[in-house]
């Protein structure tokens, strides 16, 4: 009896190992705390659900644009600096696609502007801006591109609601599938003529 029981236990253990592999879990890795995730999660999606508390205005943004050194690289008027233009040279009446690849103008969501300033600016001091400062700089850059009014107050609620000039006038990405041509009907999917 005893030996049979040992056999049964060994059999069960064997089964458990196989089961673990079949369900694809190895029990490796540590579960982060909610605070740890929040501290690392700087991806701001179109809904803005990850946006932190805080608020900003155009007036504060205009001051920060100078005091944080933005003007040094992007130009005092956000054009013709060493770094990319942040204001279009084309008139506001022109088609948005004809007004240059200006982030605070062409981005489909104002959240993209906030996300980029927050993660990538200022050069060499990335990640040092406070949430209020990022809201203010976003407000200023949207204002100089005629996207928002001068008295706008941007926060976690109002920022995702900003209507960007591009609207829905941009292509969504292809529904990618493995082993599928990148564009059906494109010249490369038709074999060349035999000579």
């Amino acid at each position, binding site marked *: 009896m005893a030996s049979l029981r040992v056999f049964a236990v060994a059999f069960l253990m064997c089964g458990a190992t196989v089961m673990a592999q079949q*369900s*694809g*879990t*190895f029990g*490796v*890795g*540590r*579960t*982060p705390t909610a605070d*740890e*995730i929040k501290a*690392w*999660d*700087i*991806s701001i*999606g*179109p809904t803005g659900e990850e946006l932190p508390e805080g608020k900003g205005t155009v007036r504060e943004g205009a001051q920060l644009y100078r005091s944080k050194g933005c003007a040094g690289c992007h130009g005092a008027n956000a054009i013709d600096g*060493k770094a990319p233009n942040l204001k279009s040279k084309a008139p506001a009446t022109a088609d948005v*696609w004809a007004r240059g690849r200006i*982030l605070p103008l*062409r*981005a*489909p*969501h104002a*959240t*993209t502007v906030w*996300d*980029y300033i927050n*993660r*990538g600016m200022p*050069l*060499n001091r*990335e*990640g040092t801006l406070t949430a209020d400062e990022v809201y203010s700089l976003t407000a200023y850059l949207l204002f100089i591109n005629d996207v928002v009014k001068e008295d706008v107050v941007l926060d976690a609620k109002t920022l995702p609601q900003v209507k960007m000039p591009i609207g829905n*006038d*941009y*292509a*969504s*990405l*292809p*529904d*990618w*599938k*493995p*082993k*599928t*041509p*990148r*564009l059906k009907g*494109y*010249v*490369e*999917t*038709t*074999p*060349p003529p035999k*000579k």
Partner: protein
Amino acid sequence: MGAKRPDRRGFLKSGAALAGGFTVGAVAPAIGQDQEHHGPQMIHEGKDQIAYGDRSKHVTSVRIAHGGRPSPDPWGLTFHIAAPLQDSVGVITPSSLHYIGTTRGSFLPDIDPKEHRLMIHGLVDRPLTFTMEDLKRFPSVTRLHFIECAGNRSSRRAKNVQETHGMTSCAEWTGVLLSTLLKECGLKGSATWFVAEGSEEIKGASSMPIAKAMDDAFVAYGMNGEAVRPQQGFPLRLMVPGFEGIFHTKWLRRIKIVDRYYINYNDFGHLDRDPKVAALDYQIGPKSVITFPSAGQQLPGKGFYEISGLAWSGGGAIKLVEISTDGGKRWNKAEFKSTPQRMAHARFSLMWNWDGKETEILSRCTDEIGQVQPSREQIAKYWNKPYDQTFSVQGLDNSIQPWKIAGDGSVTNGFA
């Protein structure tokens, strides 16, 4: 050069004379020991050379800044650096010569692998954080893959294949399938996209479809038999085989599972108006280029040459490469030097007896899903645009590259 060497020939002669009894014929110098070949000088190997060897000082092949922007740039950032394909052999790009591209321009982070973490969170049952040690406990894959920058396009001004095609490279990568890690976390049914983020100062991030994560994406810690190099994302890089280079997130620290296209800064760079262009800006098309003979090189005269080049595609393995040595009138099937791998450079060749007359040589490839590399004329026709000097290929440029060979054997860019 040879003045400092002992006169080995003299030594042999005197040695033979001392031994005596031999005929003059017996002391004739052996092959490699004549006047011009006293044997090579020594490389003095210090401790560092014993520990980690350098290539020969006579091999001078180097990377160059790509597209007119120097690296480091005026801010000290590394941007785009091209691999010397004209000197390449086989399919592996040495790690020291692998092309480099960064988000915006970036500094190279000096990451302690003991401190590095990968966090996977968002639409999963169990968010998890992995150390590098954790990741090495999972079953691994080792695969040959190219990475190519979307900006890798030929122009009339380009002087050689490094300038026309140097923003592609191929290495052997080792790591853990992302699908393995996502199973560990328990992917929720609502997951449709994921965002991958690096730990460099700008924390470059891109959105990609979850289908790619579950198909063949992996997080790589190994490259060409050792740890991934810092310039390539040490200690961890996301591999998304066949996608544009920028998606291969370096210094990978976070993967967030989401239910929509997140439109990060890198995604903003991919914004297109026309869905056709958007489709051509994502998965890399079938592409090949002849690396020998290529622009800037010189054929010494008529006679036999092995034409050699590289072919790759984001659609899978290369199935066929054809070479024309008469400006595209006739196409000859090239030979593969090793079995082509999926989303990897394939080395092809063709023996050619050059008659010494001016001509143009070209290559085109077909991948396993039947996509065929087009000419620029064919692409212009597809878009109903005139094929002239103003024509620019939409999306990633995978067009056929012509090389002109003049009667004197000089090779130049066929687009010039």
